[in-house]
């Protein structure tokens, strides 16, 4: 899952830049291109941050709308994707605070039935394998949900999305060193949680 995205992203940056200029000229179709290009990553970040499919959809919509409103403020100092994911993380945080109680209810992910919509297995996998995989994944998600917000951000962006420390520092506006220490603590917490959840790793 982990990917090195620095190189391909560099190419994407220029592409985004042209489209952003079109957006600023009031071309909504150009904004559609940006949505198309970034929605999957946005959705996955939101999904792992919240552990909730519907909530992730809402967050992605809100984040794109916020980006659309603020696109004139984007100075191009960082990559557009960095700026966009920063908005996404902020929207997630805000929404999660707002729906904290609601989230506590919906994220009971140790129940495997909670994570059916995540496209976890292909049709070729056997029912048992699928079930087992789904169960494990639900438990992993549950453990992610138990992390502190700061630790979760670091884990999702680094270990799930594979961003570089530099990029994460840009997205979260936090120094790299801080991100690293948060990440190590997050990993340690994940290990302990998974040990509890799965019995044996």
């Amino acid at each position, binding site marked *: *899952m*982990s990917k090195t995205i620095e190189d391909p992203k560099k190419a994407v940056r220029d592409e985004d830049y042209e489209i952003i200029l079109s957006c600023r000229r009031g071309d*909504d179709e150009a*904004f*559609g291109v940006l*949505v*198309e290009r970034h*929605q*999957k990553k*946005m*959705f*996955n970040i939101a*999904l*792992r941050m919240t552990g909730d*499919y519907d909530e992730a*959809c809402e967050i*992605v*919509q809100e984040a*794109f*709308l916020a980006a*659309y*409103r603020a696109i004139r403020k984007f100075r191009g100092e960082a990559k557009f994707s960095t700026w966009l994911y920063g908005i996404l993380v902020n929207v997630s945080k805000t929404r999660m605070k707002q729906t904290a109680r609601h989230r506590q209810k919906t994220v009971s992910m140790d129940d495997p039935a909670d994570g059916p*919509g*995540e*496209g*976890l*297995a292909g049709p070729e996998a056997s029912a048992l394998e699928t079930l087992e995989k789904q169960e*494990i*994944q639900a438990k*992993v*998600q549950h453990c*992610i949900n138990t992390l502190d917000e700061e630790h979760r951000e670091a*884990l999702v962006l680094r*270990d*799930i999305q594979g961003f570089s420390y530099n990029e994460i520092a840009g997205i979260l506006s936090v120094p790299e060193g801080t991100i*690293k220490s948060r*990440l*190590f*603590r997050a*990993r*340690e917490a*994940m*290990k302990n949680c*998974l*040990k509890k959840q799965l019995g044996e*790793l």
Partner: protein
Amino acid sequence: MDCKHIEEKIPAYLEGVLPPDEGKRVEAHVAACPSCRVALEHLVKAGKLVRELEEAEPPPWLKQRVMARVREERERRQGFIRRFFYPLHIKVPVTALATVLVAVFAVYVFKAVEPETTYLRQAPSEPARVATEKDIPKSLAAVPLKVADPEERKERKAVTVSDRKRESEKKEVSSEARAVPLKPAEKDVAERKMASRPEAAPAVSADAAIKEAPVAKRVLSPAKGERAALGAAAKDDVRAPAMAAKIKAAPAVRPGYAFSLYATDPAAVMSDVEKILVESGARKVRREFQDGKGIVTAEIETEKEKEVIEKLKSLGEVREKDKVQEPPAGPITLKIEILSSP
């Protein structure tokens, strides 16, 4: 270093960010300590599980939803702009502002053109002043007529005996006229008739007639003839007495030339203009200076007119404003407006 410390260092060790010597120490400890080795293995496995989380596909409608909200946002923004400019509470001030602007512009245009219109108002009414002021009933005087300045009144006091006689005659007639006041429309017609008569134009004003008696007689004679003709035509007409009064007063109508002189310093040039006029034998040279514009009026002999103009040309650009075609011999009124050159 105990196991607790080593366990804390394991994530950094796995990430490869520990300093080399510390990394070696952790490595050595893990090799020797089974519990720490298990901790490391668990961490690796946990990390693997996290990374193995499958990427989910966003729902196909997500983009459409986003774009629908983007469009909504755009419409809302445009709606705001529309609301800002068009609703009643904004439109009224906008209309009011537009009205005020139009009014200001109109005043500005009027101010800019005023010097011209003032002159146009003055020039033709001046000769008729004597008649209109004194002899025409108040009801008629409502028509915009310029009130004579005090200087002129003084001049009028110094009339000769013969003129007094004439004036008393005039008063008689005018009292008749007062008894049967002209309706404004009728007066209008009468005035137009007067204006259309070329003989009426060369008539000189009463005070000119006093000093230039022979000339005045000559000039007045056609007017008299005219009066006779008019009188015959409208013997029993109620308008006749008033008409006669007007014609009597008509010597005021006098040929006039008006020129505009454009000079860099109108105030300074004024005395030069005066000098030129005096040199050319002008009489009744009057000057006034107002709003950066000088006006010099004088009476000169028709023959001298060209000479004066030539001399004026040395002072600045001369533009003809108003000229009576084929003036009779004798004195004419010359009005020179001195303006600062554009």
